[in-house]
């Protein structure tokens, strides 16, 4: 079955390969069907809650398979933007197209997934069954469990499959949540400050894990974070959102694997922080 999957991937969709030209040093894991990024096009997006405008005329194109980070002060609308793209909120105005194929049959579409700030695991389901939640409505129970087990291997928690979530550490729970998000081979993975609650070392480990899996699977990643260093370490493009608009759009031209403390990254981080901190207050 796996072999079959590899063939199909090789034969179809040449787009996925091209994105990885710059990252040839990292070996890619065998691919599976449905594994391609979704491109996101946002046109003149507006969103307001009870007359209070959060997003105001935002335009954005996220190419398939890219890793984009959205940073901004709290309350700048970055989480709302992510929830709008995921379809968790309805826009007040404007439109969002996924893959530019608004009329395509839904069935064949690779799913979009989100990782929340909290793991949001079902405490009454074993770890493997929690991961299988990511496959809701697909295949038989046995198939779901089998794929969930494979996803747990990917995040390095294979031996925890039969445990209750309550017995895991915070970092392990977030890895289970990552496995749940990835088990369905999503075309778009939205990360809503998923590492905010973890300690610094665990966070770095998780960042490396997310980067490795993203490189291997080629989904479109959209990371919302308030940690500029995290954005700079992971993303190849950073959007700074301010007052519901994109205030800064930067490409991170640093090759992977990136070393923490790299001077190029530090310079970039400084620039973004200056913008965020200085921003409106500094007199011209």
């Amino acid at each position, binding site marked *: 079955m796996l072999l079959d999957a590899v063939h199909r991937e090789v034969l179809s969709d040449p787009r996925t390969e091209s994105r990885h030209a710059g990252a040839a040093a990292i070996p890619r894991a065998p691919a599976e069907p449905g594994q391609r990024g979704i491109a996101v096009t946002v046109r003149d997006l507006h969103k307001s809650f009870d007359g209070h405008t959060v997003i105001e005329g935002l335009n954005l194109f996220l190419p398939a398979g890219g890793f984009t980070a959205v940073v901004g002060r709290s309350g700048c609308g970055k989480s709302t933007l992510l929830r709008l793209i995921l379809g968790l909120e309805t826009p007040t105005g404007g439109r969002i197209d996924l893959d530019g194929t608004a009329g395509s049959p839904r069935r064949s579409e690779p799913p979009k997934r989100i990782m929340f700030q*909290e793991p*949001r695991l079902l405490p009454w*389901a074993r770890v493997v069954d929690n991961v299988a939640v990511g496959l*809701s409505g697909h295949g038989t129970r046995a198939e779901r469990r089998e794929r969930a087990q494979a996803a747990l291997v990917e995040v390095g928690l294979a031996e925890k499959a039969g445990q209750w979530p309550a017995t895991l550490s915070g970092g392990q729970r977030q890895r289970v949540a990552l496995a749940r998000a990835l088990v369905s081979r999503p075309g778009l993975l939205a990360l809503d400050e998923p590492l905010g609650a973890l300690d610094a070392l665990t966070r770095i480990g998780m960042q490396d894990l997310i980067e490795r899996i993203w490189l291997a699977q080629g989904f479109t990643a959209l990371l919302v974070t308030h940690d500029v260093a995290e954005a700079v370490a992971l993303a190849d493009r950073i959007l700074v959102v301010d007052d519901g608009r994109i205030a800064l759009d930067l490409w991170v031209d640093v090759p992977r694997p990136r070393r923490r403390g790299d001077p190029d990254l530090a310079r970039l981080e400084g620039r973004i922080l200056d913008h965020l901190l200085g921003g409106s207050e500094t007199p011209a």
Partner: protein
Amino acid sequence: MPASKYERLRDAAIPWLLPAAILLGWQAAVSVGLVSNRFMPAPLDVARAGWEAGRTGELWTNLGVSTLRALAGFVVGGGIGFALGLANGLSRLSERLTDTSVQMVRNVPHLSLIPLVILWFGIGEEAKLFLVALGVIFPIYANTLHGIRSVDPGLVEMGRVYGMSRTELFTRVVLPGALPSIFVGLRYALGIMWLTLIVAETISASSGLGYMAMQAREFMLVDVVVLAILIYAGLGKLADALTRQLERACLAWNPAYRSA
């Protein structure tokens, strides 16, 4: 390993030390004449009465009749309370429609309906079933509703985003989340179930444990009265133990319920 076996035996015995001590003290108090046998028979006399009642089969018949009544009332009332709790927990409309009425009825002590119930049903089975069901409805209702309300909305949102159907969302997220609270309701309801039944049987019945105790009082058989009371204690403990087992099996994921 004799040491661990001994320890396990000791652990199992600890909860029974107090009841055993009370029985011993009681027996001693009656034996030395501290308490009159006419008002408080000694445990041994009660045991003898129990043996006698068991031998004639009277005890078992009454016990069986009472248990059956209790369970029937519990199933009917518990079913209604659970269904109502689910409906009101899941639907705002249903809650707005029924909650006010439920709260009003809830505050009427259900045992105050006994005169009315005797008028309606006489002393037949329906009377007991009605009263037990009525008593059981509210703890189950209130705790089911509360359980569903307190399910983490983050989990529900997660289930939706991850493509769960409405049925899946209910069976995999909402119901398991409400279960700890539903169990609290279950234990309250079991207590109310026995209470209601015994009162109802004491006042209007021609069989059952309450009736047995009432008859015994008329003939001044104090030992049988005490026997009935001790049986209530045993039944209460039994119901509680069964619920605990069920809780431990259903809520094994919750660290609070893991082997006490």
